[in-house]
């Protein structure tokens, strides 16, 4: 199997807003501390479209835009465990009212592929785009899908993964307590700024999932299924050859060899 290059990384999480702010922490030079997640206004979206979107959608677009600096129309994989919990909460609430009414904008924003649809409109990309979930292992499943797409074609692939927390009462039922999003560009070809390359395999060995090298990030890693990407982002930023084990379906692990 060919290795696939990671030619760009972006991130949005508390105290990790953008790869430039995140790098010293991902490289173990600074400690991570919890802070409020800021309100985002991704410039990719025209203001009138931006008003119709939620924090969840904005976060996905922010990292997609940061990773895809050439503004290419790339095939894209979007991955999120829970979808837009704010919208789910809002619509389920409105279904308890009389008369029952769903706002048209909230309804079309409620589809799992809403961030993908807004990104395609904003980036004017008519390329294929998918939107997936596998709960706690969503980051790994999305990475695997993006990897198979990168193997199948010469084009670069944009991979965007994100989950955003909600408030009571639904927050207690989900696996998301902090906002976390990341995006990667996967490619068969090494770029000037490449972080290195990865190979993927599924392992049935009872390996523990990889934890962050910078232990101050462990709290963040447990707060959002997409934050299981952190050990991989660390290895890529450090250009550290390693074998990582990310949570995958059931008791399986996705083995990511960083070369």
């Amino acid at each position, binding site marked *: 199997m060919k290795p696939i290059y990671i030619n760009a990384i972006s991130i949005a999480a508390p105290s990790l807003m953008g790869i430039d702010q995140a790098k010293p922490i991902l490289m173990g030079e600074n400690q991570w501390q919890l802070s409020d997640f800021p309100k985002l206004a991704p410039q990719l979206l025209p203001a009138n479209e931006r008003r119709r979107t939620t924090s969840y959608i904005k976060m996905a677009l922010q990292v997609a835009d940061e990773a895809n600096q050439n503004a290419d129309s790339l095939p894209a994989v979007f991955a999120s465990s829970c979808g837009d919990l704010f919208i789910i909460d809002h619509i389920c609430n409105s279904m308890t009212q009389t008369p029952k009414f769903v706002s048209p904008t909230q309804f079309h924003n409620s589809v799992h592929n809403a961030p993908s*649809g807004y990104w395609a409109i904003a980036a004017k990309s008519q390329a294929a785009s998918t939107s997936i979930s*596998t709960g706690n292992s969503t980051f790994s499943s999305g990475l695997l899908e993006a990897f198979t797409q990168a193997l199948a074609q010469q084009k670069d692939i944009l991979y965007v993964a994100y989950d955003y927390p909600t408030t009571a009462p639904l927050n207690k039922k989900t696996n998301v307590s902090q906002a976390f999003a990341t995006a990667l560009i996967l490619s068969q070809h090494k770029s000037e700024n490449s972080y290195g390359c990865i190979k993927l395999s599924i392992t049935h060995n009872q390996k523990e999932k990889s934890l962050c090298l910078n232990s101050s990030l462990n709290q963040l890693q447990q707060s959002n299924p997409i934050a299981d990407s952190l050990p991989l982002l660390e290895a890529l930023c450090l250009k550290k050859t390693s074998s990582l084990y990310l949570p995958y379906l059931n008791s399986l692990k996705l083995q990511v060899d960083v070369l």
Partner: protein
Amino acid sequence: MPISPLTITASSMVNALGRGKKTTLEALLQKQSGLKPAKNLDFSTWLGEVSDLETYPLEKSLQQFSCRNNQLAKLALDSDNFRETIEQAKQKYGPDRIGVFLGSSTSGSAETEMAYQKRDEKGDLPQNFDFMRTHNFTSLLDYTQQSLGLIGVGHVISTACSSSAKVFAAAHRHIESGFCDAAIVGGVDTLTETSLYGFNSLQLTSSEPCCPWDEKRNGINIGEAAGFALLEPSSKSGTANVILKGYGESSDAYHMSTPHPEGRGAATAMQQALDAAVLQSDDIDYINLHGTATPSNDAAEDKAIMSIFGDNVPCSSTKGWTGHTLGAAGITEALICMLVLENQFLPTNLNLTTPDPGLNSQILLDNTSRQVKYVISNSFGFGGSNCSLLFGLQ
């Protein structure tokens, strides 16, 4: 880019027409719709509901996944001898080498709707409500894998109404890159208040039986359905069968809930499917339309078809039988295409009385027996997500 074909070696389906492929085939041949007037809604519409699902429990060991969506999944897994064939495939490939790629737009989200109705005085949701094992999309995958005893790769695609068409492409890529040797694809979608009232608030539901391509068409009838198919590399399948020969995926990049008026993304998806199959437009004998019966959807799809096929290919929408089964529409209509190929007939457009004179593709006005070798199935969804699948006889 040409792809290596995959053979459908087993399949099962359940929808408003009933349980099993034979039931759907007979309803198609006899032109009997599964749509009925909706009850218990604040507005009038027709629905494609699966009856008696409430009394079809999950396995005792998998009760934690209990919800209407997984009950419908089980009903399909228990139909058409599908489970038994998967047991044989497990012997052949191993339970870790069969991938599972499923599409859904609803998953078990009706459970969350019900939980909100049952909040206590503090506003908390019921203790026994399990969001991650019912509503979260992974519920459908986890249930299906555990019910079949599979431990390989997989994921759930949720791209609105193209969800369970795109699973064919994902399965193909995972097999091609060696992460599995065979794959189950499928889709399961069930009626939810969110989708019923949501489509109604967008003024996209019809108060009459839906009539795709008709000049009086005024919206969709929502349906529920489940379907599964086992895909094996054609070289390993052994028997003459229906094959996946091509697929195409694209984005409209136009609007969240309205298709590109010229059907730009739809045309790209169909052309890619032809290219992947190394076929020309005149090789295609039938197109199963997305054909939802909203004025704008059918008009955009018609333009897309005319730009590639002209009026040379017979087309029909089968949503007059099943309703629009949203996240399960891709697999339902893929399996209808399989029935078309196996039985060498083309289904008509049920409920179509006066074809819209503004639409120009060759629309079928009655069931037709004829030689069929290659067919295309279209699925287009909110967010401008398009997928076309190309099936043929081996």
